[in-house]
């Protein structure tokens, strides 16, 4: 036995393997991830069935109406990967097994971002295909490619934002509330800021998502005139910065 484990080490690869086992062995993360995958497709079918699409909208924008909701779920998934550990006390087990706290967060981030990217890419592509098949031909199609890759990326960013907030807040309810607030409030309260609205609303991952889906809601005055891709890079950058702050906090704090 002893000889078998001589090569043992606790690095990034091992942390990632452990995170994957932990992720798929708890119902909350599995079901929320499943919901993230289902919601965009259900949204496309719903919009087509009710004929609720506005005339100036595109097939891709209409099909991905509920992508904003799915993106919130993605953020919740990200938050839960760490708040679940604080809630159950497994964070101490995890950190004792791998004292490299930055490594642990990096593994969680890789898992969350990779998984959500793939799931969102598949789910949103299916949603667009469903919308294309079900919606009347009078709507413009829009340009699904390469936008779908960016859309998937915005889900990954939302998940990472959730992870960063979860690491800082350490409590499921608090983290979920905070991260949904971060996604929603900019566009809700943006109008209060007058001319600054576009800057404030434009900083939310939701803004990047809306621009990428080419929905008619994503007007320049609502979410800023920054193009879809620069918008995505901007929120990705902000999220990366917050994640670094979160890693710093985790390394500094006692667990």
């Amino acid at each position: 036995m002893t000889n078998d484990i001589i090569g043992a080490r606790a690095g990034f690869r091992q942390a990632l393997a452990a995170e994957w086992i932990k992720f798929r062995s708890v119902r909350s993360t599995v079901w929320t991830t499943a919901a993230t995958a289902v919601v965009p497709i259900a949204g496309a079918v719903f919009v087509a069935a009710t004929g609720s699409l506005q005339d100036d909208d595109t097939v891709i924008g209409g099909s991905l109406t509920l992508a904003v909701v799915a993106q919130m779920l993605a953020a919740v998934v990200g938050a839960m990967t760490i708040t679940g550990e604080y809630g159950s006390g497994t964070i101490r087990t995890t950190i004792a097994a791998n004292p490299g706290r930055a490594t642990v967060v990096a593994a969680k981030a890789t898992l969350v971002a990779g998984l959500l990217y793939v799931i969102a890419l598949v789910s949103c592509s299916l949603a667009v295909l469903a919308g294309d098949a079900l919606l009347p031909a009078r709507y413009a199609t829009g340009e699904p490619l390469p936008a779908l890759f960016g859309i998937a990326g915005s889900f990954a960013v939302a998940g990472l934002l959730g992870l960063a907030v979860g690491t800082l807040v350490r409590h499921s309810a608090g983290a979920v509330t905070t991260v949904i607030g971060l996604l929603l409030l900019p566009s809700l309260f943006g109008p209060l800021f007058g001319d600054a609205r576009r800057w404030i609303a434009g900083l939310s991952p939701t803004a990047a998502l809306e621009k990428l889906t080419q929905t008619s809601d994503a007007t320049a005055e609502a979410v800023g005139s920054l193009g879809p891709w620069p918008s995505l890079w901007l929120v990705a950058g902000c999220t990366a910065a917050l994640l670094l702050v979160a890693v710093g906090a985790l390394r500094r704090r006692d667990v």
Partner: protein
Amino acid sequence: MSAGGPLRSVGSMIEATELTKRYGGRNAVDKLSFTVRPGRVTGFLGPNGAGKSTTMRLILGLDTPTAGRVTVGGKRYADLRAPLRTVGSLLDAKGVHGGRSAHQHLAALAASNGIPGRRVDDVLDLVGLPADTARTRTKGFSLGMGQRLGIAAALIGDPEVLILDEPVNGLDTEGIRWIRGLMKSLAAQGRTVFLSSHLMSEMELTADHLIVIGRGRLIADTTMRDFIRTNSRSHTLVRSPEPEKLRALLEARGWGVRLDPGGGWRVDGTDATAIGDLARDHGLAVHELTPAHSTLEEVYTALAGDSAEYRAGEAASGKEAVR
């Protein structure tokens, strides 16, 4: 398990040097220095709130010391290449997600240190958790099963050092006996076994060596045998209708005389025979003459006496009190 396997190097000591941890203006651990050696069970004794759990978290690198340092096998915990291979731990709060099965919990732990997955079945077998139980969610586990899972997790990497915080807390007698036997056999294999308890009676039966702390400070660091010899003093209880006369006689012989809380005298430095003879020689009636020992429990309570008072004050601040 490596039972029958090669004995490991005897270099895996836990060494704390002037270890200090400050919480909210109070030292939960105060300049604590001690060494835990391999090949024996070292008991870590102190009343609740004395700083035992904090010290263990400091060893595991979960908390950062305010001052001083602690190493395992000469290295800081954070510098261990595969920590679970060197140190297995069971903390007060067990750290298992209720929604996960025991098997999955152990599999994730094994994966985190690159330990082969089949080791999971080995440790489940070792702690006596049946395979079908190990596949169910741990939420429904009894205290005893949870504790067995915690020990399985501690043993997953076949570690040289075991750190267990109150491992017998809440267990039934069968579970307690099992843990005792396991600790002793692990120590006999040459491992370093460090376990905490707030109960002297528990330590008396399990530990070979004792580290006693109170208010975060070291009170005693000694072998169990020495601790018993130096601290478990015997005396003789004697009761007489003429207590003052008796006391004068006893003190004239140079024996120590104290008032017993229940009335009568506690006499040190002699035995019942000598006292009985002395009383008869002077025509004094003796109504009771009993040889007595102060128990280890009493000694420990006396040692830790002022630490206990500390508990009420600590409830407001210390992390320990919250757990």
